[in-house]
C-alpha cells in the first residue's frame, strides 16, 4: 500500500508525465465561451457531447507529437569544486534525435543554496545538439550530491508539456571563497599595500642567507661579500631574509559565537577565508602549517605540512566546516595543538573577542601556552556594536542598549589591553580585512624575528 502510494505520488505529482499548458487551457476556455454563447439560442446534449469530444481529441493530437525520453539525450557539465560567492556556469547539453523542434525549460536538482534562475523557453532544433547554461551562485559551503534533472518539453504548438526526469549524478564541493588568497598569490606586496607593511629584510644579518647581489649605494657595508667581490672584480653584497621552516598553527573556532551573521556570510565563513589566506602566505614562505578546527570537540585536524600542495589538503579538510550551537572548548583545542605541535610555533586563533571578555578562565590556558608558543587571537570587529554605540537614545530601551554597548566596548578594550600585557595580542579587524590583518601580522612577526 505504501509502495503504491509512493508510486502514485511520484508519477502523478513529481516524476514523468504530460501536463496541459496554459495555452491549452486558454483555447479550451475560448471553446467553452463559444459553446456557452451558442447554447443560449440552442442546446442539445448530442451536439454538446460531440463538440466536446471533438475539441478534446483535437487538442490531444499535440500530445502524441511529444518526444520520448530516449529521443532526447541530456548531459550535465558542472565544476567539481566551486568557490562560495563565486558565480559559476552549469551547462546542460541536449541532443535532439527527432525531426521536430521542441521548446524546453528545465529545473535542475541543485541544492537550494545555489541561487539561480533556470532558463525557460529554450529551443532545441531537430537533430541538433544544444547547450543551455545557467548561472549559479553558491551560498553555503559543503559537499553536495546533484542527481535529478527535470525538463519539460513542448512542441511548436505547445498545447501539452512532457515532463521527463534524467538521473545525472554529480558531486559538487563548495569550498571557501579564495579570492583573497588569489590576490595574495598574484602579488603579495600589492595585497598588503594598505597595511603599510613591506615584506622586507629589516635587521641586518638576521635570518637566513638568501643570495649574493651587486652592491648598490645605501647597502650596509658590513654585509659586503669580499670574497665574491674579489673574484668578480665588482662589489657584491649578501642578502638575508627571514628564516624559513617555522611552524604556524591555525586554530579555527566553530562554536556558537562564530555563527553571528555579517553583511556577507557569518563570522566562521570569513575566518575560514582568512585562515586559508594565512596558510597560503605561510606555505609560500616555506613554513609549516597545521590547522585545528574545534567547537565543543575537535572537528578537523590537519597535521603540519610544507609546500603549496599542503594547501589543498587543508582546503579539503576544512571546506565543509559548520557552526555548532555549542560553546567552544578552548582548553581542549590548545591541548590538542600542543600535543601535535612540539616545536615552537605561531598559534593563530580565529575566534570572537567577546567570549574572552566575559570569562577570565581562558587566560590561564593562554598564559601556559605563551611559555612555548607565540600566540595571537584574531577576531572580527562587531559592526552592530559600533552601530549601537552611535544609536540615538530615543527611548529607555534604546538608551539602555546604547549604554550596554558602550560598557561592553570599554570592557573589551580593557580585556584586550590586559591580555596584551600578558603577551597575548588580540586583534580585531573588520570582516573584509580579516585576511589582510592576519597575513600582515604574520609577516610582521617574521620580519621582527619573533618566531
Amino acid at each position: 500500500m505504501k509502495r503504491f502510494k509512493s508510486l502514485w505520488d511520484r508519477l502523478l505529482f513529481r516524476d514523468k508525465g504530460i501536463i496541459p499548458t496554459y495555452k491549452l487551457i486558454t483555447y479550451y476556455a475560448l471553446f467553452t465561451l463559444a459553446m456557452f454563447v451558442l447554447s443560449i439560442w440552442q442546446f442539445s446534449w448530442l451536439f454538446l457531447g460531440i463538440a466536446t469530444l471533438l475539441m478534446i481529441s483535437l487538442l490531444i493530437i499535440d500530445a502524441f507529437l511529444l518526444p520520448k525520453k530516449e529521443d532526447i539525450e541530456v548531459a550535465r557539465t558542472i565544476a567539481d569544486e566551486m568557490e562560495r560567492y563565486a558565480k559559476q556556469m552549469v551547462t546542460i547539453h541536449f541532443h535532439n534525435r527527432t525531426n521536430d523542434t521542441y521548446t524546453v525549460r528545465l529545473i535542475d536538482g541543485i541544492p537550494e543554496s545555489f541561487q539561480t534562475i533556470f532558463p525557460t523557453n529554450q529551443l532545441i532544433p531537430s537533430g541538433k545538439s544544444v547547450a543551455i547554461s545557467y548561472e549559479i551562485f553558491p551560498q553555503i559551503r559543503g559537499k553536495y550530491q546533484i542527481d535529478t534533472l527535470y525538463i519539460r518539453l513542448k512542441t511548436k504548438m505547445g498545447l501539452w508539456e512532457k515532463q521527463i526526469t534524467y538521473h545525472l549524478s554529480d558531486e559538487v564541493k563548495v569550498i571557501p571563497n579564495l579570492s583573497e588568497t588569489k590576490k595574495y598569490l598574484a602579488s603579495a606586496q600589492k595585497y598588503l599595500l594598505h597595511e603599510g607593511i613591506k615584506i622586507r629584510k629589516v635587521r641586518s644579518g638576521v635570518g637566513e642567507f638568501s643570495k649574493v647581489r651587486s652592491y648598490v649605494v645605501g647597502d650596509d657595508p658590513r654585509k659586503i661579500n669580499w670574497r665574491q667581490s674579489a673574484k668578480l672584480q665588482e662589489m657584491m653584497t649578501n642578502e638575508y631574509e627571514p628564516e624559513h621552516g617555522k611552524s604556524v598553527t591555525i586554530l579555527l573556532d566553530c562554536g556558537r559565537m562564530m555563527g553571528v551573521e555579517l553583511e556577507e556570510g557569518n563570522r566562521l565563513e570569513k575566518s575560514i577565508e582568512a585562515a586559508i589566506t594565512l596558510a597560503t602566505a605561510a606555505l609560500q614562505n616555506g613554513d609549516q602549517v597545521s590547522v585545528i578546527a574545534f567547537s565543543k570537540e575537535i572537528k578537523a585536524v590537519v597535521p603540519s605540512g610544507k609546500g603549496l600542495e599542503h594547501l589543498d589538503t587543508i582546503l579539503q579538510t576544512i571546506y565543509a566546516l559548520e557552526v555548532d550551537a555549542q560553546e567552544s572548548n578552548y582548553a581542549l583545542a590548545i591541548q590538542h595543538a600542543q600535543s601535535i605541535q612540539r616545536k615552537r610555533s605561531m598559534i593563530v586563533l580565529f575566534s570572537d573577542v567577546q567570549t574572552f571578555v566575559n570569562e577570565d578562565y581562558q587566560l590561564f590556558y593562554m598564559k601556559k601556552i605563551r611559555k612555548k608558543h607565540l600566540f595571537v587571537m584574531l577576531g572580527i570587529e562587531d559592526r552592530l556594536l559600533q552601530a549601537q554605540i552611535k544609536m540615538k537614545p530615543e527611548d529607555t530601551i534604546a538608551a539602555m542598549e546604547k549604554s550596554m554597548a558602550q560598557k561592553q566596548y570599554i570592557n573589551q578594550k580593557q580585556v584586550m589591553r590586559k591580555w596584551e600585557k600578558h603577551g597575548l595580542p588580540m586583534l580585531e579587524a573588520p570582516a573584509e580585512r580579516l585576511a589582510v590583518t592576519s597575513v600582515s601580522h604574520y609577516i610582521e612577526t617574521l620580519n621582527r624575528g619573533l618566531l
Partner: protein
Amino acid sequence: MFGKKRSWIFGILFFLLLIVVSVFSTSNTPEEYPPYLVESPSPTGLKALYTYLEQNGHDVTQEEALPTMTKETLRVLVNPPVFTDQQTENHYLDYVRQGNTIVLAKENPDGLFNLKTEYALTGSESETTEADYQGEKLEVLQNSFVRLAANEDDNVLLEDDAGALAIERHIGEGSLIVLLEPTWLTNDQITKHDHTSAVFNLIPFKESGPVIFDEYSLTKTGGLVSHFELYPGWAYVLLIQGIIMAIFILWNQGKRFGPIYPVREETVRLSNERLRAIAIWQAKGKNYYASLEYQLDYLKEVIRERYGIPYQQNWTERLAGIAGKTDAISTKELDYIAQGIETILARKSLNKQEYLSWSAKIDKIREEVE
C-alpha cells in the same frame, strides 16, 4: 517515427468517426416513455384509452398547461405528483368549483385535494380483489395498500372488503372523482379482468363534454422530469465545460516541476542578542543611574582619545577643556551640562525623564567629540 505518429492521428480520427456514427445509429432504438403518457404506446401508456375515446366521437384533447376556467369539462389526472405548490392545487380546486369534473387516478392520493387515505388490511394474497360497483361484482387488480377515507358527503363509487377504491366528491358546482388504481387505465391492463367496465362505469365519459388528459404535472414539474432537462441549456454547458476546465487546471497546477526542498531551519543569529537581553533586563530594573554611568565612562574614554584629557579630571574640568573646540555646543551650555553631571553623580539617582534627557545630552557631546 513520424509515420508512426501519423497513423496514430488517423487512428484517433477514425475512432471519432465511429463515435459519431454510433450516436446517430443508436438513436433508432425504442424511445423511453415515462409512464401514463397519452402518446405512449408502451404497456404503461394511456394511448389505448385515448384512441378509443377519440374514435368513438368523444372530444378528447391533451393539455400540458394548467386548466383554463371553462365549464363542464372532464379532466383526467393520472398519477400526478403531490403538488408542492399550494397555488397549483388551489387552481385545480377553483377549476372544479366552476363546474368541471376532475378524475384523479393515483395509488396514494393522500394530501392531494384534502384527500385522506388509510392503510387497508387486505387479507387475501391474490393480485385481484372483488370490488362492488352498485351491487355489481367486478374483479379488478389491486396494487394499492391504502383505501380512501370517505366523508359523509362523499359518494362511494367502488369498494371492496377493505374499503373504498373510488369515490366522488362534490366541490362547488363540479365534482372530483378519485380512483386508487391508475394501472387500470394503462394499455396493458385496460382490457384485463373487469377493468374496462370499471373504468367506463367510474369515469363519466358519456355524460361529460370535452375530455382533457392533463399532463401538466407529468411533464412540467415534479420528479418525472429528467435531470438532464431541468435547467437551461447554457447551465449544462457551463457545468460540463467547467468540470473539464477544472480537470485541466488542476492537472496543470498539480504536477510538480523540480525537486522538493525541505524547509530550511532558521539559523540567523545576530551578535547583539545578549546586549538586547541585558538592556531589557536593566530597563525593567530601572537601573538608570548605572546606565548613565556607563555612558559617561564611554564619553570619558572618547574625550581622552580625542583630546588627551586624563581620567582623573572631574567633569567641569573636562568639559571646560573641550570648550571652544566644538561647533554645535556653546561654552555656556557645556558648563551647564558639566554642572548637571556633577549634580547627578553626587545624587546617585535619577528618574526616567532625567535619564532620557541626559542620555540625549551626553550623546550630543559624544557626536561632537567623535
